[in-house]
Each structure stands twice: as structure tokens, then as C-alpha cells.
């Protein structure tokens, strides 16, 4: 095999990227570099935060309705004329503005999120000056990190009024009866209807369980192909089209894979985390769970086809570098910014990091398709705790936290994709990269990441066996068969538990 490596100059650059982000992290956060929260999306490696470009972690979640994301929810959108209603004024049933109370909030994210939430709280307090907001902000960027904190706080009897939950946690907290449905608040409040009308139905559906809406989305993420425009231009390769196929993708990756030693460039860096691998299934018209999310679907031949394709990128076609285990940091982001990867996959979260490191030679495209053009999405949203004694007030705060002003600020921070269409399709969000319209556009045909109540177990099983498969410790057939048996048992326990 060829000796693939980075030049010392590249290494220094990578190191400085990392070191810079470490410094930022060490200083408490790095507003800029670490992204905030896109809930779901971003995976996270627990430790991942410190890299310049954060990565998603864990990911995600899912919906409830399985396949049907797009079908279920449309009603809300059509029912309310969107732009007509007015904003955030307190609804008819809203608590009086002289209400005295304390609202406890559980939320998480990067430094940018913290400031955005603090500003939203300040605006809320202008309406409700006698309300005290206790913000239990946890500086982590992924739900899987945050969920530990939530669980232990709840176990200790610290129940919040308002809680920020990524979709991977939704079914768990619903199952445990920790939050209440929000349909009544939405339906009885013009502000709620306005909000719902401005959010893509697929995002609302992601928070529907048993036909009820349990959370209000604030931001979300998906997976798109990022490609290095300079490398494409230098190699005289056509940029990907929105209808490109796996075959097109592989041919492109092969063309991009050139050189050796110091000059080695790989065609594609595999996003090796649960959420990042999801598009390979959806674009092949399959998924890891059955449509109702109650059983394993890992024995589907299409799943095997998808996993084999990913495996072969490294071991047969050699267009992707070794994935190096389930890394805690986003090696791909560093390599991509250093011009060592022609393509890789992320949601919206690495863009700010790239820009801050003066890397702008990239654009985004839809994932290549095998038999379908279906994208994946993971969503973060606000829910109201069942044990809250200030639910109407908490609802008013949700409206502020999902107001255009707050979502606009979130969009400017740049990590996640705004839940509100009006913001995501605004000039600020679309200014870079040039094809940014497809971030929100991917929702036209998208499914939420699979997130049953035992999401963490699903993720753990899948990634454990994917590690074996990608390291050739087992073949895709053997690995998936073993993973299927284990996941099947886990899903059976979920039914009985």
C-alpha cells in the first residue's frame, strides 16, 4: 500500500488548528470554534469539543413516524397562514406580565448558545420583570453528553420547567413521562401557530410521538457532502450535481485520489459516527430499524449493500483513509481544511470553524443517491417538564427562545440550521457557502435519524460492529449479522421494559 501521510507543513497546520482550538476550549469555550449545539447533529464525541471543528456526535434521532416524515404533518403548515400572525405578544391565556415566579431551564451548547439564550432571557424579562430565570446551562455540544446531566439532575429531584432536548432523547423522556405535549399551547396561541407555520413539517414531525407534539424545534442539522472546490478545479473535475449517484460519487472520489507520500490526497473522508453514516442507508431506501422503529432491520440486504459500499471505500477502492476507530475528534475536518480530502460529510456545524481558519474553498451538495434521494435530519427543541408548576409561563419563554430574533441570532452563530424557514432562507444564512439553500432544502425529502427510547443502545451496538467491519476484524456480512442479533434483543427488551 502506498505510504500516505501529510507533509510536515500540513501537520503543523493541523496541529495549530488543533492547538488553537484547545486554547479556546481551555479558556472556557471558544465561542467561535465550538459549535454549539446543534443538537443532534452533531456528534459528538465527548471529547470532541476541543477540536477546531466540532463534530457531531451522536446523533440522532428520530422521529416518530418513521417513514413518513413528510406526510404527517402538513396540516399545521397549511392551517395557518404563516406570515400573518403577530409575534410574540403574550397570548390571550398568557400569565399576566406582573407574574412573580422562577423558571428553571436546562439547556446546553457552546459559548455562542449561552449568549443567545441569555439574550433571549433578557428579552423575556422585559415582558415579565418579576420572573427569575435559573439557567442551568451545560457547556457541552451533544445530547449524549447532556443527557447524563439531565438524568442525574432529575434523579436528584431537580426538575426544570423548561428543557432543551435533542431528538435522540425525545422518546426516552416521553416514555418516562418527564415532559408534556404542547398541542394545546400551540393551538390556543396565535404565536404558537405562527411558529409552527414557519417550521418545516418534517421538523415538527420529529417531535411527534403518539400523534402529539412534545417539543418545539429551535435548530437542526443534516448530512451533506462537502467538497473542496479548489481540488475539483485543479483536477478539472466537474462539481457534483444534485442528482448524482453512488457510481458518480465513487468515480469522482477515484479521480480525486491522487499522489503518494507528501502529496497524497484522498477522495472522501468517511464521517464515521452514527449520524454521519445514516445517509448511506436512506439513499439506498433502507434503514437500520424497521419503519415503526421497534425491531432491527440490519439483516436487510440493502443495509449490507450500504455497509459494504462504505467498507470498500477504504479497503477496495482506497479512496478513503482508514477511519482509525471511532475517533473522539474530527480528523476529517482537519484533513479537509488542509486540502487532503476532496470530499467529506457534515451538517452545518463545521462551517464557522472552517471560516475562522480562513478556509473557504468548499461548497456543499446533496448526498449521492443509490435508489433514493432521502436525507437525514436531527432536531433540537424545547419541552416543558410535566412537574413544572409554571407551564404557561414556560410556554411563553419557549416562544421567546424560538422567536425570529433568537433563531436569527442562532443562525448568525452558524452552527446549526435554524428551525424557522424564514431565517434559514434569509440572506444571512445563505451567504456562504454558495449552495447553502440545500441545507433547509434537504427537508423536502428527509427522515429523522432513528431515535427510539433506547437510542444510546442502538448507537452503541451499531458503531461497535461498524468498528469491527471497518477494521476488517469481521466481514460486513458477519458484522451485520451479529449486530442484527444484538440489536434485535435490545429492541425486544425495549418493548418489555
Amino acid at each position, binding site marked *: 500500500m502506498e505510504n500516505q501521510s501529510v507533509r510536515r507543513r500540513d501537520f503543523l497546520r493541523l496541529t495549530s488548528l488543533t492547538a488553537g482550538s484547545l486554547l479556546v476550549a481551555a479558556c472556557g469555550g471558544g465561542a467561535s470554534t465550538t459549535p454549539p449545539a446543534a443538537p443532534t447533529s452533531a456528534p459528538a*464525541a465527548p471529547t470532541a469539543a476541543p477540536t477546531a471543528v466540532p463534530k457531531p456526535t451522536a446523533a440522532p434521532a428520530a422521529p416518530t413516524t418513521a417513514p413518513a416524515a413528510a406526510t404527517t404533518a402538513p396540516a399545521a403548515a397549511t392551517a395557518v397562514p404563516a406570515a400573518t400572525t403577530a409575534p410574540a405578544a403574550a397570548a390571550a391565556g398568557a400569565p399576566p406580565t406582573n407574574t412573580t415566579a422562577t423558571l428553571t431551564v436546562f439547556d446546553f451548547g457552546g459559548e455562542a448558545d449561552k449568549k443567545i439564550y441569555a439574550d433571549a432571557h433578557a428579552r423575556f424579562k422585559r415582558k415579565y420583570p418579576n420572573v427569575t430565570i435559573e439557567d442551568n446551562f451545560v457547556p457541552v455540544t451533544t445530547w449524549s453528553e447532556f443527557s447524563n446531566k439531565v438524568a*442525574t439532575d432529575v434523579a436528584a429531584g431537580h426538575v426544570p420547567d423548561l428543557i432543551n432536548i435533542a431528538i435522540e432523547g425525545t422518546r426516552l423522556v416521553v416514555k*418516562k413521562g418527564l415532559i408534556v405535549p404542547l398541542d394545546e399551547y400551540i393551538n390556543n396561541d396565535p404565536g404558537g401557530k405562527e411558529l409552527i407555520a414557519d417550521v418545516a413539517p418534517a421538523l415538527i414531525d420529529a417531535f411527534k410521538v403518539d400523534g402529539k407534539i412534545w417539543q418545539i424545534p429551535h435548530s437542526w442539522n443534516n448530512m451533506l457532502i462537502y467538497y473542496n472546490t479548489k481540488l475539483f478545479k485543479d483536477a478539472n473535475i466537474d462539481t457534483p450535481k444534485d442528482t448524482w449517484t453512488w457510481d458518480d460519487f465513487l468515480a469522482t472520489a477515484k479521480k480525486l485520489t491522487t499522489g503518494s507520500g507528501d502529496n497524497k490526497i484522498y477522495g472522501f473522508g468517511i464521517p464515521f459516527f452514527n449520524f454521519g453514516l445514516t445517509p448511506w442507508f436512506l439513499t439506498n431506501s433502507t434503514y437500520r430499524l424497521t419503519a415503526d422503529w421497534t425491531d432491527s432491520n440490519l439483516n436487510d440486504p440493502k443495509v449490507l449493500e450500504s455497509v459494504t459500499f462504505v467498507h470498500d471505500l477504504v479497503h477496495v477502492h482506497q479512496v478513503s483513509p482508514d477511519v482509525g476507530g471511532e475517533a473522539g475528534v474530527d480528523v476529517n475536518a482537519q484533513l479537509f481544511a488542509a486540502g487532503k480530502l476532496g470530499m467529506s460529510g457534515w451538517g452545518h456545524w463545521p462551517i464557522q470553524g472552517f471560516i475562522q481558519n480562513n478556509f473557504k474553498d468548499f461548497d456543499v451538495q446533496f448526498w449521492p443517491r443509490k435508489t433514493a434521494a432521502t436525507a437525514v435530519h436531527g432536531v433540537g427543541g424545547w419541552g416543558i417538564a410535566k412537574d413544572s408548576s409554571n407551564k404557561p409561563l414556560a410556554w411563553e419563554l419557549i416562544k421567546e427562545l424560538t422567536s425570529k430574533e433568537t433563531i436569527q441570532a442562532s443562525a448568525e452563530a452558524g452552527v446549526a440550521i435554524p428551525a424557522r424557514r424564514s431565517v434559514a432562507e434569509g440572506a444571512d444564512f445563505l451567504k456562504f457557502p454558495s449552495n447553502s439553500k440545500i441545507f433547509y432544502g434537504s427537508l423536502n425529502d428527509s427522515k429523522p435519524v432513528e431515535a427510539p427510547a433506547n437510542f444510546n443502545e442502538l448507537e452503541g451496538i451499531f458503531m461497535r460492529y461498524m468498528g469491527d467491519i471497518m477494521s476488517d476484524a469481521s466481514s460486513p456480512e458477519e458484522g451485520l449479522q451479529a449486530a442484527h442479533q444484538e440489536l434485535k434483543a435490545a429492541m425486544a427488551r425495549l418493548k418489555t421494559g
Partner: protein
Amino acid sequence: MAQAQALARPGWLSKESQREALAGYLFILPTFLGYTAFIVGPILAAIGISFTKYDILSPATFVGLDNYVRLLNDPRLRTVYSNTIFFTVFAVSLNVGVGLVLAVLLNRHLRSPIRYVLRSAYFFPVLVALVYSSIIWQFLYQKDTGIFNYYLGLLNVAPIPWLSNRQWVLPSIIILDVWRNAGFAMLVFLAGLQNISQEYYEAAQLDGANRFQLFRHITVPLISPTIFFNLVIYMIGALQVFDSIMVLTKGGPGDASRSLVIYIYENAFQFFEMGYASAVAITLFVIIVILTLIQFRLGRAWVHYG
């Protein structure tokens, strides 16, 4: 006897003695309270939880010995135990061995600036948070893009799958661990070495002892308490290895680098199986206690306290 008691009693009961006793108890009270609240309490709680099914979000239900029966039938637990023992044996041996060698080399008559620079250099990794070190090493360890394989490639060595191969992953983590922790052992050994009087060496040299004999028959016996201390401390630390693995591999590929503590963490805080996680933790606790007692027992044979 009775006379002695009669003499002692007034002193023991004197107000001054009582005050001294009270002061003593007050001095140890904070430590006692802390130890009880943060060590004994959690251990007792873990023992209690290990007999329950508890997911944190719902009330616990008593399940008797179910979790312990599950321990016996969990093939993954055998794997993580095997990984942890492998890691412990090699990480402890190498950390203590390398630390001792470095300390002996640096205890020689080097010029002060050189000595200070070298000591600082070897100890420096201890000062850097392990998570950050691990992130850097993750880049170094990449099979196709890492700097280690780049330089090995210049020597015509084929790329090593440091983190993505079942056979290589634990040795890779051990290498990082030794790089990071051997400096601490070195520091402790240096302190031990500097307590050895030069007279012993001079006397032995007059008797014709060579360097190895000096090391074997003077240095090792006289720093045996230090060696023992390092062995105990490093063994306990190695059995609890967590951070570096979480950053480098998250336990993968497969379960190839999953340690016991990572397994406990995953069961407790990712799968919310607090009962089973507690049962596994209890086994680790018992094993650490037993191994430490064995070390103390064996230590009587080879550790020489002044």
C-alpha cells in the same frame, strides 16, 4: 498492674488529655466526613443499587442477584476484563520500569541545566490534561494520514493501523499511557534515589561492585518502598483507565480497547442500567482491594523499610 492503672487513670482522664483528644478528633473530622460522604457512602449505595433494576428516571426495583447472575453470562464483560488486565499488566510494568530507568539515568552527575531540562521534559506530559494529549496522539496515530506512519514510511515500514486494528489498539494506548505517566514515576523514584546515602555506594565500590551490582544490591533494595508505592498507585490507576481510550477509540474497534470503567460508564450513563453497572463496579472494587492486599502481602518479602 493495678498500681500502673491508678497512675495512668488520672492522666488519661485529665481535662487536658480530654481536650487534646477532642482536638485530635476535630482535626480528623473533616477528612472522616469527606471520606464517609464521598467514598464509603457511594460504595454502600453502589452495593445497594447493584441489587436493583434502576434507570435513574424511574424508581428502582429490587431484583435480588439478577445483576450478578448476568455478570457471569456476559461475554462482553469477559472481553473488557481481559482488555483491562492486559492494559494493567503492561502499563504498570512499563510505567514503573521506564520511570525507574529515567530516574537512575537522571540521578547521575549531569550538569544542572541539562538535568533540569531533562527532568522537566520527561515530567511535562504529566502536566497536560490527558484528554488534550490524547487528541494530539489521535492525529499522530492515524494510519493513513498520521505523522508516526509518515516517518515509519520513510524507513520503509508499512503503515501500522494503530487505532483501527484489534491487535494494535491496546499497545497503542499503552504507549500513550507510558509517554504520559512514566514521568510521575520518575519523579517519585528520583526522590527515593536522593535519599540513598552515597556511603553505601562508596563502600560497595571499594569492595569491587560493578554498576549492575550497585543497582541490584543497593539501589533496588533501598528504593523498594518507592517501587512498591508506584506499583500500587499505577495498578489502581490502570485498572480505572478511561480518558485516553474514550478519546482515542471509544473502546473500539468493536470491543478491542473497551476498558472496564468505560463499560461501567456506558451501562450507567448511556444505557441507564445503573443496577448492572453498579454490579460490575463492585467486582472492580473487590478486585482492586484483593490485588492491593496481595501486593502488600507480597511486599513484605521484598520491600525494605529503612
